[in-house]
């Protein structure tokens, strides 16, 4: 049997290069139907190329692409995009300005007779809450409404795979949150396989059942649930994707790493090796006393309220990291008028060790 029985997208052993510059290096991935997989990486990491290879907008150079039961690309076979049953929402794939909302959505339904296309287009516009705008033109709609129509247009032909390329980047922060929630809920109802590209870790965390982190060399650095990527980052690079990190370099001594915050067991490192310890700002906890878990006395240098949390700068008073500064994220505002010694201790869930070469 040639194809996989798991419905969805299967890309196996995909290489791609522009001239002599490799952009994708032996990428394999699976997106089961009903699941959303995010490719997360910096610009230039090849994530958009991978999407274009899946779509057939870029010729496959090596490997294979299967959608549901159909091989759509492999050596000597390249189905054109329109024969792959894919829905697109790309940055540069705007609505047609001269067509109405309804006509935009009907555009991909040219294979159906007019009445059936009309019914289907109205159904899917209803699904995204845009049925009453059917006769309007794109310029009369807000950015968020245009985005909903774009989603309806992508889903109207009942694709087996939806490809999203930074679909919300044109929206302002308020609207982005709402539209991505709506988009996710519509995609889940549709039970379609979705592959999305983003450079925004928070967006990937929100949308994805599984995140694949791509590095600059066109290789997958880590794949997992958002929780795996956040709580078990495989490398310093992945750990740092989610914002600022506190850093301590410590030497393994008798299997242990010493810091002002206490002694921890060294993981996967040899005696005498330098280990980089990263601590998320939310992984440092401030309190008025030493507490049961120990910790270290600190001076608070500054505190900035960011909304529902604050970023507090502290300086360690004692031990191996005496005089070093750290960033702490706390819920709510920090009370600078509070008297008494402040102590900091670490939440081990936010501490990561990376042995250095």
């Amino acid at each position: 049997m040639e194809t996989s029985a798991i419905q969805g997208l299967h890309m196996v052993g995909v290489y791609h290069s522009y001239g002599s510059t490799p952009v994708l290096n032996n990428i394999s991935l699976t997106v089961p139907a009903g699941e959303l997989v995010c490719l997360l990486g910096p610009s230039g990491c090849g994530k958009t190329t991978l999407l274009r290879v899946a779509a057939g907008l870029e010729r496959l150079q090596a490997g294979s692409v299967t959608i549901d039961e159909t091989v759509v690309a492999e050596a000597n076979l390249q189905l054109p995009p329109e024969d792959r049953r894919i829905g697109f929402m790309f940055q540069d794939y705007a609505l047609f300005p001269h067509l109405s909302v309804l006509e935009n959505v009907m555009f991909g339904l040219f294979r159906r007779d007019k009445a059936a296309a009309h019914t289907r287009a109205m159904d899917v516009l209803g699904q995204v809450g845009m049925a009453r705008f059917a006769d309007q033109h794109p310029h009369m709609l807000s950015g968020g409404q245009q985005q909903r129509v774009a989603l309806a247009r992508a889903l109207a032909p009942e694709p087996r795979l939806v490809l999203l390329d930074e679909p919300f980047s044109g929206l302002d922060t308020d609207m982005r949150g709402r539209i991505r929630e709506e988009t996710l809920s519509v995609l889940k109802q549709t039970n379609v396989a979705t592959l999305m590209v983003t450079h925004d870790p928070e967006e990937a965390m929100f949308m994805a059942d599984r995140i694949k982190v791509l590095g600059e060399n066109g290789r997958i650095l880590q794949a997992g649930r958002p929780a795996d990527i956040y709580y078990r980052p495989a490398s310093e690079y992945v750990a740092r994707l989610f914002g600022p990190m506190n850093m301590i370099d410590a030497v393994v001594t008798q299997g242990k790493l010493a810091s002002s915050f206490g002694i921890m067991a060294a993981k996967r490192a040899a005696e005498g090796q330098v280990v980089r310890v990263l601590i998320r700002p939310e992984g440092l906890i401030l309190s008025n006393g030493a507490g049961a878990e120990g910790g270290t006395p600190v001076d608070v240098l500054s505190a900035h309220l960011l909304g529902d949390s604050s970023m507090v700068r502290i300086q360690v008073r004692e031990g191996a990291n005496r005089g070093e500064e750290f960033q702490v994220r706390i819920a709510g505002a920090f009370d600078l008028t509070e008297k008494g010694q402040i102590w900091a201790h670490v939440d081990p869930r936010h501490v990561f060790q990376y042995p250095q070469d």
Partner: protein
Amino acid sequence: MVEITRSYEIEVETIDSDHRRLVKIINEITQALDDKREAECARLVPEFVTLSKQHFAREEALLAKNGYPGVEKHREHHAALDGKMDTMLALAERVVESTAARDALRKELIFFLMDDVINEDMDFKSFLMDAASRKGNSTDG
């Protein structure tokens, strides 16, 4: 149903037959979940995890024996899956009472199998095939 297809084969029999055994258990687990026999996960999921670990060890030994330069990296990849296997074991204990755990387990199993176990092995497929043709015989054993 999951089926291993030709494009997912490494073309080394010991590895491919391990992968097929893992696929078989996943299918038993998803079938049990479909048929409301969730209680069987308490036996099947630990079996899957044990078999996965045995497979990783076997695969690492085979890669080392064939002088695959990325063997250490692949070993680290396998080691990094411990957390995911712990998650699956924990979910398996909750599938009887929790719909969310059931859905999460099904999802985890499929992604683990297709992405973490099989897709990642594509890294060494061409190396082992070249090694076999250099030696003019099988890389197995």
